């Protein structure tokens, strides 16, 4: 990692407490432009808290969180405005007269061409999440924040969404922070994986160096998974 370029994210000494409970107890994290980082953690470990701080949705943190100004979020639920057609959901808050046509392009890119005028309620879970992805990408973010975006999808849809996300990231090259509890998902997608421990600090920081297309049945994959699971305090036989 070169240190001469400005990073997309620089977090130093991030702390966040809810009442007595300190969820984040001094985190440091740097993400380079175009780098895909996965933040792994058990549920309730404060992963989403961290992402919300980066997204600007939680001003009550202590420490320093510097982010690229152009950022976009994909939440666990699609969070489309039910009363706006899909294309208007993607274009929401976009400035400029060409907002709609850009939204249309983004929808085509995630494979939702032809669904522009659909109401969100008519979309399947996977389609809605694609629309949410289009809504994020149309902003051409320098930083893409993903909060367990595939957690609510079925296993088959999730596999297709992984492929789509990889493809989109390769094309647009945003810096990505993916928050997930799914170890396999993290290994499949990320350049680097970091683990948020129960103590509210970041544990090991593991670069993912898997040659070629990533496959779950290789020994390297297995070794990495075992390592990360141990880090999370789980063993595979559990």
């Amino acid at each position, binding site marked *: 990692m070169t240190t001469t370029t400005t990073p997309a994210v620089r977090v130093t000494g991030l702390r966040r407490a809810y009442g007595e409970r300190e969820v984040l107890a001094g985190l440091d994290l740097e993400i380079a432009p175009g780098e895909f980082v996965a933040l792994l953690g058990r549920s309730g470990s404060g992963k989403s808290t961290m992402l919300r701080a980066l997204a600007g*949705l939680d001003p009550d943190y202590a420490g320093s969180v510097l982010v690229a100004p152009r950022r*976009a979020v994909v939440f666990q639920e699609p*969070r489309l*405005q*039910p009363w706006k057609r899909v294309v208007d959901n993607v274009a*929401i*808050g976009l400035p400029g007269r060409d907002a709609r046509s850009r939204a249309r392009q983004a929808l085509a890119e995630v494979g939702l061409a032809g669904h522009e005028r659909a*109401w969100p309620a008519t979309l399947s879970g996977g389609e809605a999440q694609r629309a949410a992805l289009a*809504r994020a990408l149309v*902003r051409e973010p320098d930083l893409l924040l993903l909060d367990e975006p595939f957690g609510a999808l079925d296993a088959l849809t999730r596999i297709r969404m992984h492929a789509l996300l990889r493809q989109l990231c390769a094309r647009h090259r945003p810096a990505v922070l993916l928050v997930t509890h799914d170890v396999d998902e993290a290994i499949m997608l990320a350049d680097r994986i970091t683990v948020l421990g129960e103590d509210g600090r970041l544990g090991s920081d593991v670069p993912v160096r898997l040659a070629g297309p990533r496959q779950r049945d290789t020994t390297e994959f297995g070794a990495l998974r075992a390592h990360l699971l141990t880090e999370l305090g789980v063993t595979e036989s559990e």
Partner: protein
Amino acid sequence: MSTIDALTAAGSPAPAFREGRRELVEARTVGGRPGWRVPLPRPVRRLAGPVLLVVIWQLLGSLGVVSDAVLAPPSAVLAAGWDLASTGELSANLVASLVRAADGLAIGVTVGLALAVLAGLFRLGEDLLDSTMQILRALPVLGLVPLVIIWFGVGEVPKVALVVFATLFPVYINTYAAIRGVDNRLVESGRAFGLGRLGLVRHVILPGAVPGFLVGLRYALTTSWLVLVIAEQLNATTGVGYLMNEAQTWNRTDIIVLGLLIYGVLGLASDALVRLLERRLLVWRRGFGGA
């Protein structure tokens, strides 16, 4: 081989049937037969009840079981309607009532909506308005009649004022609750995608409050007729209520029933109006792919 033997015998296939009938049955016939059906279209069947009621009512009158002085039969009501319509009396009074309801509703709904938006969007608005509104809405509208007469006399104003008062609160209460009930996650997502305060109000909060507003509007329409019935029986010289009040003096039950029918039809019509609005404004709910 008995069932038990079949179950316990190792390696032998499990029996399809433990007991009773030994053949497969069509799935939709299992668990009760479909009921006996009259081969009539549904609307016709639904109309049968009211029609039967009217027939019985007519028979009771025609056979002299119930006298006109107690309850005029449908034929008499129709005749009274025809008479009043041909002299123009009916339409004049109907228009008078409609104008009162429309005026009252226009003011009541506008004020209720405006107050709900103020209280819903601003903390200060909530503090200043909401407790007051919650207290005032507990007042029975019809209890205000003497006061309204003292304030506004006996012209149009007191009648319209009563409708305003009665329609304002359902609109306020439901719209305010709907604004406060908008899913915070949607607000957050709007914020995350660059909507400012005004944008959030326009694209997230107000559209989200429309269903609640429509519920309030429906209540308001129903209540407006209810209040008008009373208001028009007090010192009025026009209106459907006045017509009924006059009829009472002359023991004309046919005209009284006619008035009731008109109020009923007006109630149904206003309900249909709101439903039309709902169909227009809430397409997104019904999940149409595009009209």
